[in-house]
């Protein structure tokens, strides 16, 4: 999960560089080919898998400790025993903790808080992709180098009459820098 975070951080660091000449390399290719969104989707999927796995393991631990420290109602303990080896997430255990707190006056504040935050981070992780993509903006970058044959001159140029007609365009050109002195 940390590796993915570092991977994404390098993308963000590259994207927030101000000088366009610094914005080259791997990430430039990713953006030019329109792979930025896919990178985010795959990265956040990896993060979510890691988080879900860790949360699941934590749920087993919490279920065990809930039995050990008697933090659920008596009638929920059989279900909690099963949750030690298989659970459908922190929300189920949280529900039991809350029921125990309200109906049986169990002192399980720490467990409730832990599970609440786990549910919260689990929900937030579903929005990671959207949140990361909110940082994206349209960007103009140097593309790939293309070689081709370019027509450049004519043996039979046309007559010029523009002195009396409005110029069709004011084309850009390249120029050497110059300075002013007096």
């Amino acid at each position: 999960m940390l590796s993915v975070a570092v991977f994404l951080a390098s993308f963000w660091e590259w994207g927030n560089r101000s000088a366009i000449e610094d914005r080259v390399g791997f990430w430039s290719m990713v953006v030019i080919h329109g792979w930025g969104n896919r990178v985010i989707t795959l990265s956040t999927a990896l993060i979510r898998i890691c988080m879900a796995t860790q949360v699941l393991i934590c749920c087993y631990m919490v279920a065990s400790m809930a039995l050990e420290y008697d933090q659920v109602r008596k009638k929920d303990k059989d279900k909690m025993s099963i949750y030690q080896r298989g659970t459908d997430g922190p929300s189920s255990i949280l529900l039991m903790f809350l029921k125990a707190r309200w109906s049986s006056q169990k002192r399980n504040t720490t467990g409730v808080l832990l599970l609440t935050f786990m549910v919260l981070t689990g929900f937030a992780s579903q929005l990671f992709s959207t949140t990361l993509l909110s940082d994206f903006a349209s960007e103009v970058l140097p593309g790939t180098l293309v070689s081709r044959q370019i027509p450049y001159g004519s043996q039979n140029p046309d007559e010029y009459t523009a002195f009396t007609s409005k110029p069709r365009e004011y084309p850009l050109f390249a120029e050497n820098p110059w300075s002013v002195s007096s």
Partner: protein
Amino acid sequence: MERKFIDGHGSSPGFFDSGPVRRAFVPLPASERVALASYDGPVNVLEMQYLCFPIPLNYIWNSTKMTGTFAQPSARVLQFIAERGGPFNLTSTTDWSKIEFTCEPNMGDLSVCEGQSIGSWSMIFGKADNPTATTLPDEYQGEWVTSTFVNIDNLYPNIRMKYTVCAKHVKSGDGHARIESKSNLTEPVLLNGTKDSGREAKWDTSAIQRVLGVQSMERRSSQQRGIFQLLSHKVIEYGVTGIYGNGLNYVPVWVWCIGPHHTALSVDKYGRSTCGDIDKQLNLALLDIFNNTLIDTGRIGLALEAVTSILHADTYYQNMPRFEKVAAGTIKDFVSGQAPRRWLGFGIVVGFMILHLVLVTSVIIVFVRSRSFDNIWKPDEPMYVALISSKAESQNTVSYAYSRA
């Protein structure tokens, strides 16, 4: 490479040197030009330099037509020319009396005279502030001198006019260049309406002047002007652009309509021009670019440079469909894509990831310290048995029942 001006006044002549300007035009349509990040390939290079200063005239002014030659300049002008006259083939031994001119000055506010007779020179006449005060001595201001001109035709009075002459170096040719831009550019357009209510111009030409570098005398980089930077160039074959209709092999011909006829182009507020015996309406957009440049910079050399650039470019691109010579080039375009441009979303995500890691770590620490952690190393012993042994005294009936079973 620099632009240099020396303001003379009173009896001292001033000078203006536009500096050597090299402009490379890429043979690509506008849609491709504006997307260029870098380009290495064939180009058309326009070289320009205007050196403007006052010079005495030996003239005959009969009715509206003035003919004559240049006269020996002052020592100060000669020194200036010696320092900067290289590209113009001017030296201290130049025979000025062989530089002939034919002009029709005083046709409007400003008259620009060019033609084969004065080859690579432009003569510019303008109205003096006090045209009838003909007894005053010559007065200098910048590159201009105000002098009294005597008309030999009795029907036309003597008149005071200001004038200057500009040696011009204008060459173009096809070659090869490397150019680049730090950002994608947009081409300037003429805006309808004056930028200054005090002016009579119809068009706001400031965007074009900015690109041409003739909006003010401030130093501006290529990026500030919105043009490409010319990294290197080599002209392989010069044409004779600007020498009025000589055939060019690989570059298009463009002709000042005033050139072949030895007559003046009257650049006045009405945009009237005269080419030989044919009256033509000078394009007002071009006229406004000329006038606005002159007003903004005060330099006739820069106004001529601006018009020359536009005419050359317009001709070049007008002929682009006829280009048949081909050369290899490499092009890198700017392309648009989606990239992260702020840290907010990333920060939120990292924040939740840290919170998650804190929660997981907390659970692990608490779990490791609990007796449940010891029991997980006993796989054959169900957890609830361990639970019963530790909680028997707590009257856990369910666990107790399990243990009994």
